[in-house]
């Protein structure tokens, strides 16, 4: 009771706003009208009838990239509104949500700079939620030592870098591995932060983050099956804050085929259902990843069944991103004239 009063005094208004935003997520009827569009201009016209409104009104010709950029801008607008009006501990919590995008942006920039691409072009590819002041300065660094010592050390990501590995290792490791290790460090830190919050936030968020960690562990184990990674390399990438314990993670890191990964993961009932319900289609379009996305959508919506916790903000931003991906998928199918695959988006259950 005390928690609810205290929560309402600092974040009650923003929780109400977020629940309002959540009610604006696309419903099944909206998706039905979007999937019946035959051109991107049709799609833009139909999106006007949703909460997005006139996102493309000023554009001459619609393209998938323009859709992506405009939809992301809407997420950023809503995020910035919440962040500007937030007080502690919510402000730190919202900052943590951005760190994931910062890690993606840094990894993408390093990859692009290694290929000598111009900084201006690379910045346009960055996710706007992951912008930070020192992002442009990454291009100034002439080597990885400078990148670490001069630039990243002053960013919010520095705590994840220094915990994970020294800057000498940075140079030798592939960008994808750097991203995975940073993400592991980030999610474990976020988990610890949520555990220190009020009991409802801790319960909801730790459940969601544990799922993310397990999903990451399972997909990394599967994707590294036919690679040169050994047991130690794989274990380094697997987050430890999930429901899968240390023995399960150790077994996953030593798996040599799909069946072994499945056997370990199926010890958890939820993941067993994910593995069991995979339908094989001729194009391998619907994979395990999609099943995990469906489970994630369900868990995120379930967080709204409880009140007075910070999880509603995290869930809303994740659901909004999933909705954007759904719209981009529909736009891609229309653009590539593959309308038979247009219904392969992830429906968001509405409770």
């Amino acid at each position, binding site marked *: 009771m005390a928690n609810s009063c205290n929560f309402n005094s600092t974040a009650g208004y923003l929780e109400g706003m977020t629940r309002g935003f959540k009610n604006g997520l696309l419903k099944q009827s909206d998706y039905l009208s979007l999937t019946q569009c035959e051109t991107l201009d049709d799609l833009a016209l139909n999106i006007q009838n949703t909460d997005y409104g006139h996102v493309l009104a000023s554009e001459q010709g619609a393209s998938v990239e323009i859709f992506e950029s405009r939809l992301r801008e809407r997420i950023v607008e809503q995020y910035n509104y919440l962040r500007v009006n937030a007080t502690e501990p919510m402000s730190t919590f919202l900052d943590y949500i951005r760190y994931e995008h910062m890690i*993606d942006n840094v990894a993408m920039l390093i990859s692009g700079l290694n290929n000598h691409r111009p900084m201006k072009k690379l910045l346009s590819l960055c996710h706007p939620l992951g912008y930070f002041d020192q992002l442009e300065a990454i291009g100034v660094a002439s080597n990885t030592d400078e990148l670490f010592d001069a630039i990243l050390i002053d960013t919010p990501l520095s705590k994840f870098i220094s915990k994970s590995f020294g800057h000498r290792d940075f140079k030798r490791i592939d960008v994808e*591995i750097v991203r995975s290790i940073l993400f592991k460090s980030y999610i474990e830190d976020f988990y610890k932060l949520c555990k220190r919050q009020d009991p409802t936030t801790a319960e909801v968020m730790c459940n969601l983050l544990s799922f993310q960690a397990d999903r990451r562990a399972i997909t990394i184990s599967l994707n590294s099956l036919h690679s040169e990674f050994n047991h130690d390399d794989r274990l380094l990438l697997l987050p430890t804050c999930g429901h899968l314990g240390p023995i399960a993670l150790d077994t996953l890191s030593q798996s040599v085929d799909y069946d072994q990964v499945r056997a370990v993961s199926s010890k958890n009932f939820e993941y067993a259902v994910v593995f069991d319900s995979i339908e094989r289609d001729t194009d*391998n379009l619907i994979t395990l990843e999609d099943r995990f996305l469906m489970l994630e959508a369900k868990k995120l919506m379930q967080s709204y069944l409880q009140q007075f916790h910070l999880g509603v903000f995290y869930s809303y931003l994740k659901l909004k991103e999933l909705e954007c991906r759904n719209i981009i998928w529909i736009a891609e199918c229309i653009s590539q004239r593959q309308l038979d695959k247009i219904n392969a988006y992830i429906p968001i259950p509405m409770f």
Partner: protein
Amino acid sequence: MTADDSKSEKNAAGQLLDSMYLDMFYLIEAHTQCRVDIERTNSSGAILLARTKFQQGGHSLTTAQIPTENSAEFNALCRVVEKAERVSIERHSVDKESGYVEPLHWFSVLPPMSLRTAVERFKKSIELVAESTNLQRELAKILNGIDRLRRSVAQ
């Protein structure tokens, strides 16, 4: 040459022409089917790339990851080789030391299933292009042959 000889030569030429026309139609059918398969495998690969972006997020597949002319040099894993007037694809195994890099690793050293499937589709597409080229060459030969035979029959 007697009239009978001339008639039997014309008959033989006519039969040869028939058989060449039949070959031509078979080749046209095979060539068209090959082009349809190329289109289908390319589209399948493209939609799988879009699916990878959908599953992993927009950062997973960007132009930033593709090498430019200023990037480190590398050797192509796949070469087109011509032997006895036939085009074929020669594949080299991955060997980082010698510059034979796996293009899939430009995007991820932990590629998801959809990306690996897209790679298989595009590899298949290259083989189909080689097959289509060979069919096209055979078709051109047959058409030339038909043209020469018709002229000699007409003379």
